[in-house]
């Protein structure tokens, strides 16, 4: 049964059948072969109740917010402002890449859109100043992944929904690890650029006057971030309501940049519906699979199997971590996360781990999937914007950052408080 489920999953995915559909098919298969009673009669009800959700509507709201931000032209100013603050460090503009990607992806919630936007703003500078393209583009690809960890995060909403974990708590739990990872990326950059200065490029130094003036340009994104996160923790708004506030602010930001046109709104809406329905097909598929796995006892069989192996809790967890890293080479973020949640999370809970904590650990692992070849979306996006050099440069460039993520995984396992401190104390 376990073998059927995991092999079936991999085989169907390898056939390049859409991920959401694979999850449905797997659900049908397990139902037909292993379930004592036909579960599929209830399929309609499962699909209805999984999509009729005031929690999930936060997803399209955040996607729309991101679509508006990407088209608002605010990234350019943010980059310039952050550059004046951080580019004196060894590694120069690379730090501006990381900082902009962190801030932008945190607010827009989309890793891929962030990588594309920051790459298009930063790349011309790299060429002009003669930066080595490897680390420079690697930093954008890696920095863009941070958005799915720092709240508001669509991936955390999906995790919370599928595992019945509190979304505001997940958002709190992601805060410290997210910023710590951004800091770790910068530390890694400094280390590499001190050892091999040729990896970076000329740093720039800006006057304090320029830095202070630049702060104005950071107001839109920081304000947006503060309003969303603040309104949730002050208890004024649910994540969905905070997302609606965010959409209104994104409209205001775009208006202040004179970027609002009817075409821009239509393009944003279409992009939102496209991304949302793509996500939702996968989420509904996972919900169906979840339902079938639980009802037919596969989840329990899997837990018994793992316990039978007699590995300790930590060893089992490490096996799971390795599995994510390996699968991450081939499957991208959301699919990897959603397809494995129904199988993995019950096991992890059984082992005695906190599912709030595991959510954050899983997010780092699936973030890695975004930048590990051959299937690492951000690599292709950044390369697509660069239009020069090879994809291989970007792949080499992300290695230091992928290592930093592994360090973070280790830290999180050793010190769960990194994630759990805030949710337990606020």
């Amino acid at each position, binding site marked *: 049964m376990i073998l059927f489920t995991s092999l079936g999953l991999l085989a169907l995915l390898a*056939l390049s059948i859409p991920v959401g559909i694979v999850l449905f098919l797997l659900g049908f298969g397990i139902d037909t072969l292993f379930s004592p009673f036909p579960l599929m009669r209830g399929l309609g009800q499962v699909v209805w109740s999984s*999509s009729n959700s005031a929690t999930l509507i936060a997803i399209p709201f955040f996607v729309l917010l991101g679509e508006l931000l990407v088209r608002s032209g605010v990234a350019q100013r943010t980059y310039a402002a952050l550059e004046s603050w951080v580019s004196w460090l060894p590694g120069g503009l690379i730090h501006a890449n990381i900082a902009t990607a962190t801030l932008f992806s945190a607010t827009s919630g989309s890793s891929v859109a962030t990588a594309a936007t920051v790459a298009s703003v930063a790349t011309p500078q790299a060429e002009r100043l003669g930066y080595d393209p490897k680390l420079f583009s690697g930093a954008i690809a890696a920095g863009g992944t941070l958005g799915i960890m720092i709240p508001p995060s669509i991936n955390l909403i999906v995790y919370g929904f599928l595992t019945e974990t509190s979304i505001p708590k997940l958002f709190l739990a992601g805060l410290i690890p997210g910023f710590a990872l951004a800091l770790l990326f910068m530390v890694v950059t400094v280390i590499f650029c001190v050892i091999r200065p040729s990896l970076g490029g000329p740093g720039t130094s800006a006057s304090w006057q320029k830095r202070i003036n630049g702060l104005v340009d950071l107001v839109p994104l920081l304000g947006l971030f503060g309003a969303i996160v603040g309104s949730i923790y002050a208890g004024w708004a649910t994540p969905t309501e905070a997302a*609606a506030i965010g959409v209104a602010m994104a409209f205001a930001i775009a208006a202040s940049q004179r970027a609002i046109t009817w075409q821009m709104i239509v393009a944003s809406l279409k992009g939102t519906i496209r991304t*949302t*329905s793509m996500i939702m097909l996968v989420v509904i598929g996972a919900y169906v699979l979840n339902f079938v796995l639980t009802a037919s006892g596969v989840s329990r069989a899997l837990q018994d199997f793992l316990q039978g192996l007699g590995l300790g809790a930590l060893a089992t967890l490490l096996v799971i971590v390795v599995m994510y890293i390996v699968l991450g080479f081939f499957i991208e973020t959301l699919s990897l996360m959603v397809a494995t949640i129904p199988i993995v999370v019950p096991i992890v809970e059984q082992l005695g781990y906190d599912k709030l904590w595991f959510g954050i650990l899983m997010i780092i692992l699936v973030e890695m999937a975004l930048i590990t070849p051959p299937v690492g979306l951000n690599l292709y996006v950044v390369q697509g914007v660069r239009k020069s050099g090879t994809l291989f440069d970007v792949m080499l460039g992300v290695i230091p950052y992928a290592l930093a993520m592994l360090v973070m995984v280790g830290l999180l396992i050793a010190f769960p408080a990194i994630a759990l401190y805030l949710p337990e104390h606020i």
Partner: protein
Amino acid sequence: MTTLLSLLRMLNEKLAVAAGLLLLISVCVTLYDVIARPFGMSIGGTDELSGYAMAVVTSWGVSYALTCLAHVRIDIIRARGNAKVRAWFDAVSILSLAAVAVTVAYRAWPVLAKSIANNSTANTTLETPLWIPQSLWMAGWLWFALSAVVMAGCVCAFLVAGRHDDIEEFAGSRGEA
């Protein structure tokens, strides 16, 4: 056949804009609720309405995502094949998608039928008659099933005719998330 598929694409684009507008309305309703709450003027049942909006937006949006090839596929093996191999992969993919779409639409009907037969209302203050959101939701999945079947039919015909480029264009894979 390419005209039919292009037409389908265009129709879905219009539907996506409509779904997007519904989403904008939900944003406004939610916002109103947040702003009006401190003044005690909030309308009850916003959560319930947004839930319905989400179900409807999703069920109508999936066919748009289908026609713009946005449903994620893991195509590492597919990408290594030549045009003919890729066309076969695409055909398998769209046929399984159509099968699932038809199944979901078929299983969605009893949900609506029961609500109509029992005259069910939501267990909330609004007491929404459930057939209203559910028929919009059901219609979306029906449209998804129809779009998928039309696409699957065309792809099969293309496959027989050896028109691999057309398959790539209308049912290929665009590595995008």
